[in-house]
């Protein structure tokens, strides 16, 4: 039996908006196993991204338990969470969040510099180059993000997320800013890389076609998460 990578129990998130309290996540309880690709679908504002933020240690749940890669992150402090991320996670954002002043190679190498402190610069560069070659950007190593297309920027983001061979990849609508073909290619790459490295993927998407490619589909609605049969995902 596979070890769970994500285990949450009654995770709740409440945020202040002006003077009123918003209940973003409601008793979210679910499990994702190692190497499993899980898609979360749901309408805008339903709490998908907030759940991903909590799982990435970027947001703290108001209550409940969140265990990721065997570590309870609901009580960890900021620095413990940073170390947790570098050791276990890869994150892919809709808006890429590349550092604009760094080349594609430097952006990918940065993740290794932070996570793999024992590696020499040469090894870091070697592995970053390989990661970019794997996503088809071997000829774009020295380009700044501003010189890359959206699809290329997202592939740099993917290389950066995967270069450390994480246990879990969190992807927040990674194709949201890309056209259908480019998006499909990025997803293809992501799934292939994840399967090759045995990385579990939690994918947030609006795209039903994309969701159907996952092993499992969960639906988020008004902060509540429910399991959905793949066949039931609307076309």
């Amino acid at each position, binding site marked *: 039996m596979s070890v769970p990578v994500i285990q949450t129990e009654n995770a709740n998130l409440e945020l202040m908006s002006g003077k009123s309290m918003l209940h973003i996540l409601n008793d979210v309880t679910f499990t994702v196993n190692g190497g499993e690709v899980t898609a979360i679908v749901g309408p805008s504002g339903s709490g998908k991204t907030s759940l991903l933020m909590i799982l990435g240690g970027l*947001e703290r749940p108001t209550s409940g338990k969140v265990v990721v890669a065997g570590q309870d992150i609901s009580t960890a402090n*900021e620095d413990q969470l*940073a170390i947790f*991320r570098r050791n276990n996670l890869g994150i892919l954002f809709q808006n890429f969040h*590349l550092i604009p002043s760094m080349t594609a190679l430097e952006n990918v190498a940065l993740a290794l510099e*932070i996570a793999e402190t024992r590696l020499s610069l040469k090894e870091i560069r070697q592995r970053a180059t390989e990661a970019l070659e794997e996503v088809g950007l071997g000829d774009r190593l020295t380009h700044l993000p501003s010189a890359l297309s959206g699809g290329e920027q997202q592939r740099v983001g993917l290389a950066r997320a995967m270069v450390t061979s994480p246990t879990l990849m969190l992807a927040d609508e990674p194709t949201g800013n890309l056209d259908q073909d480019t998006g499909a290619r990025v997803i293809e790459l992501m799934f292939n890389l994840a399967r090759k490295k045995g990385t579990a993927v939690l994918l947030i998407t609006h795209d039903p076609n994309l969701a159907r490619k996952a092993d499992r589909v969960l639906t988020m609605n008004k902060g509540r998460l429910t399991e959905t049969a793949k066949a039931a995902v609307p076309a």
Partner: protein
Amino acid sequence: MSRLANWMRVAITDLLGDLRRFGILLAALALGVGTIAGVSSVGAALQDTILRNANILMGGDLQVVRADRRADAAELAYITSLGEVSETISSNSRADAIDDSGNTVFLDIYAVDGNYPLYGNVESPQLKPGEKPASLLALKDGVYGAIVDPVILDRLGIDLGGHFRVNATEFEVRGLLTSLPNGALRGFHLGLTALMSIEAQQANPNARAPLPGLLTQYGYKIKLAEGDYRTQQPIVAAHFAGDPQWKVESPYDAAGDLSRFYDLFVRFLLIVGLSSLLVGGIGISNAVNAYIGERQRAIATLRSLGATGGRVMVHFFTQIGLLALVGILIGLVIGAVLTAAALPVLGSILAVELPPTVHFPSLATAFGFGALAAFAFSYLPLVNARKMKPAMLFRTVGTSVQSLRAREYFELGVVLPLLAAALLMFALAWWTTRDFALVFWYSVGVIGAFLLLRFAGVALQHLLRVLPPLPNTAWRNAFRGIHRPGSPAPVVIMSLGLGLAMLLVIIILTANVRSQLTGQVTQDAPTFVATDMFDDEIVDLGDFLASTGIVTNFQHSPMIRAAVTKVKGVPSAQLRDNKGISGEAQYMIGSQEILMTWQADLPANSTITAGQWWPADYDGPPLVSLKDDVAKSLGIKVGDTIELTLFGESIEVTVANLREFQFQTGLNYLVTATPGTFDDFPGTNLAIIKAADGKEKDLERALARRYADITFIPVGEALNQAAEILGQLSVAVNIVGGLAVLNGILVLAGTMAAGRKQRESDAVVNKVLGATRGDVVRVFSLEYALLGIFAAALATAVGIAGAYMIIRLAGLDVGFGVDPVLILGVLAGSVVLTIVTGAATTWKALSTRPAQYLRSLG
């Protein structure tokens, strides 16, 4: 027009919702303008007061002075024919307590006749307002009256009404002196002031000056019956033309030196104020740049909705213009308040009445400087806003700011307004200081420093870019942070460098002026000097001083008084009118005798700069050694001759060598001759004595008891008094310097604001990738330490060069030295400040949960 008004209205509405961010802009302008307004107002008030009250400050409409004797009957008849006359005599002497306490004090004697003062009043609690002092000074029951500085009572251990002696003449203290109307123009004097009658002074047989330079001055102040100094001065000067000993001075001549001194002081402060505004300008530029940068998406949105570049320019120009106006007005209020507060204090220090007033022309000047600086430093960011392209809305390249392309800087529309503003500032500075050379060289210096720092930043980036990547991650990332595209490093280097350079200029100048005038002198100066001591007295004095156990230094050397009457065959009298001759050289060739010595060995603490010292057993024609700078000022070289006159005889001596030395560091004379030169004349000795710290008064009493006939001049005390006055004046320099430093810190904060958004964004991405707060802050700290050290190193070079140039060009007659401890302290402080400011601006972003930032970054 209504469209423009509408645009402006929208701009103001937009601004009101975002006012907090402009604190730095407002503060930088307010401080710069406030400094200029304060400094120029105080300067103007000082000049006005000196010139408006010149006749009070001098004590007459005209005065005739000489140093060797009183006017004879014919001269006096002529002088009194011009109007009402008051005779004064300035001299020095020692006063002793009548009792056997041994208490003694060195007096600055100001002897006056019954008409004194012709203008103004002697201030004393014992005098009714407007009452002349003569009534208190007259001879009563065989005792003369005196009005004295209250400290004299403490020194002599007596009270008002008590008695003291000056040689054989007895005085009664009948009044305490608060101030003399002409006190400010009497300048530096040795000893504590005692006002007495001419008769009393003349009754004192000790008419000889106790030290060369302490000349007795015989003055006749004239309240003209007809005309004024403009018509009468040439007539009186022509009358006395046959006797060059007489000097005829108008109040403006007398006030001239004082006025020129304060003028220089004020010009120096004004330049500091202007520097403060220029450095503040960098802060303004950074703040506006940061603002435009953060608004670039809004600008692009406006442009994509059809707003013209002009519309965008008007929008932001209105906002910045309005803010600048507020900043300048705050500055003017600060300047006016500073002036009103400073004038009475300064007046009391300088013994001039300076009522608290507001000088509107100075405020107008400061307004002009502020408006021009605000325009010049915000214009480029505003042009940038005008030229922003809406296309950036469609790119996702992070938060970096679009900037002008290199060729866009040279477009006429960009260059001309900036050039006009720079020229107007130059003209205003010239008009204010009335010193073209100073403003010209200052501008060259500022532009040179600006270019140096700007290009040094770019060069550093280039160097770091081409260097192979370092193996250490933190160092590598810090280097990358400096040379990466869009890095604020060049701006940080320029802002910090300029601010720091200016701070160093101020610190170095202040330290040099202070150490020249006070520091070294008071440290090394002897406590007492005595002249004309016979050989047996010197031996006895040596034994006596050794027995007291409170003397740390006693030196003596032979001395003789002689005048330098010819230089290279030319009579000294013909050389004295040459304005190019330095003050010390003028003194050497003056009409009076100066102290000279003879010596076989090279005096300690002096260095030969030309020629050779004579052999110890030299027995040839008379040779002399001269002080290097004095000889150079007179054009004297080794091998030239000078003529010395003493006891009515003249001897010609050849210059054997020139030496550099400081009087404070030992017994040194302007003229030192070979042994045997003065054998035919009766020489005496000069002694210098330094008392142990805190034992000065004990030694003074002991010497007075033992050597009743010898005057020991308390030079250390006089120098301490001078140091105190200069110390008080330097408070003004420190306040202005402090304001400049504050502006520098604001600039630094503004610079950090320029790249804050990008830095925060990068920091959050690093954190998402797993970097701890410590990791990120370490890299930022390293980056800012490198920037700080680099800027500090450049600023040190620029600051030292700037201070050196100002000392040379502004003609400040001080030496040049740099205190490495002080400089290192300032530099270390600035580097730490840079690191702390840089790290602090990032810490907030790092301490917040990343989700919040990621949401706001979109």
